[in-house]
């Protein structure tokens, strides 16, 4: 059988891809202590981590805030007619808070970060491969995982959680604004409903998901960036694949999480 016709070939490629990504993330996890706490790793490790947190997180706050504000407002406008029919217009706040905290806050933040940070990390790493910078790091006995991947994965993981909190808040404010100005729900009433319906587990499950999403975004970006071959075209292809694969992976992992939480009663 010729390789092109072999039906096992795509399955093998997928397994190799998942295996490679898992090994990279494991390597990152194992290398993390030495990158931040060893005597020499400390010197540049924290500096690199702050720089990446600023790049990944701080700069994306306004975009995530705006997107989630709009989503909160849209949800409120979409829900209002149905809930008004049932005489439950106050429940707009309940629906929005659960939807935003459990689902949309972390997911939409992660999707925005995929475009904002994932694509940029993949392009940066790919360019470093093409310009022999990765090889130069290795030749200087500097582990690229410790020096490049650890700060990016850790920064994206931490910042996705932080950004999800910002996103959650912006989403609630978006719903509250529509409630206050268009639906006749007073802001105090809206806030009371929000706090009444939300439980700690809604908040925590959302943030756990956000952390995993962050690791997934940066892990995929680093993996695809470091696998670049073939110059500028390879860098472009890695960037595109990072965005597409990450969005598919985020939705899939989100489904797995949601199903697990559902069956566990969370």
């Amino acid at each position: 059988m010729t390789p092109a016709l072999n039906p096992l070939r795509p399955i093998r490629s997928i397994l190799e891809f998942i295996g490679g990504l898992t090994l990279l993330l494991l390597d990152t996890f194992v290398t993390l202590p030495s990158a931040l706490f060893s005597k020499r790793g400390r010197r540049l490790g924290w500096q690199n981590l702050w720089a990446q947190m600023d790049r990944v997180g701080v700069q994306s706050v306004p975009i995530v805030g705006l997107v989630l504000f709009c989503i909160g407002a849209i949800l409120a406008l979409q829900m209002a007619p149905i809930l008004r029919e049932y005489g439950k217009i106050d429940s707009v706040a309940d629906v929005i808070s659960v939807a935003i905290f459990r689902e949309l806050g972390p997911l939409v933040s992660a999707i925005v970060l995929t475009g904002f940070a994932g694509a940029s990390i993949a392009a940066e790493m790919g360019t470093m491969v093409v310009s022999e910078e990765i090889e130069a790091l290795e030749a200087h006995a500097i582990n690229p995982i410790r020096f490049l991947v650890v700060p990016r994965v850790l920064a994206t993981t931490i910042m996705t959680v932080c950004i999800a909190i910002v996103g959650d808040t912006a989403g609630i404010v978006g719903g509250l604004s529509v409630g206050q100005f268009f639906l006749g729900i007073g802001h105090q009433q809206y806030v009371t409903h929000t706090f009444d319906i939300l439980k700690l587990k809604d908040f925590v499950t959302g943030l756990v998901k956000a952390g995993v999403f962050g690791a997934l975004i940066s892990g995929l970006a680093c993996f695809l960036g470091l696998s670049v071959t073939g110059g500028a075209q390879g860098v472009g292809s890695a960037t595109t694949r990072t965005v597409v694969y990450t969005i598919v992976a985020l939705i899939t992992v989100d489904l797995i999480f949601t199903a697990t939480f559902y069956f566990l009663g969370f």
Partner: protein
Amino acid sequence: MPDAAIQVLDVVKKYGTRTVLDQVRLDVFKGETLVILGGSGSGKSTLLRLMIGNVRPDGGDIVSLGKSIAGMTAPELAVYRKNIGVLFQSGALFNSMSVADNVGLPLREHTDLPEETIDIMVKIKLELVGLREHAEKMPSELSGGMKKRAGLARAIALDPQILFYDEPSAGLDPVTSAEIDQLIIDLNQKLGVTSVVVTHEMDSAFRIAHRMVLLDRGKFIVSGTPDEMKHSEDPLVRQFVHGLTEGPLTARRRGHEYVDDLLGEID
């Protein structure tokens, strides 16, 4: 005979079914500047990457500074790499760091020296390559020659015993190329380092080499001093060294493959 800094022992390297290096044997002696010559695809860059431990051989071994590279564990390889310096073809500077930070990176990563001492050492290294006044510039602000000099300053940051150069003159104008050659000679004489240079630029090779080897299709054809190479009777060496248009290298390219390519293989 002087001691060997590097011994390449029957090294074989394959990429898929293609054999890039075929039972290659080579000694690099301590303190010499050895130039590895060869055309594109001859395997010379692969040989360099094997010697710095970035690629593992499929057969044979490389003994460098008394240790087998093929058998090294990751920590052993890291120790070995702290004793060598590499100048990459593009300079391979880290674009997000200034020139001074590039040169200081190996010192910050591998020594416990205080920042003040590192700053002084960085200045010394940059002065050696004539870039002290450009320390705060970013790589994107440097010319091609300056990038290579900055790469060289970074390569000598940890005072290596062996320096590897990958096409140091590639893409440079003749004057800048001559300046880089002079730097290679100076570093070899002032620091006493062993130098391995991979190139196909003959002017540069004759200026810097103590000894030369010619690699063709993954095998060494000949080894000798620059004078011996210049006066070699071997037609392949003559063609390569003198840049002749007629000879075995061009005859090989004009071989039957072209006819096959045009007409297809006819049984």
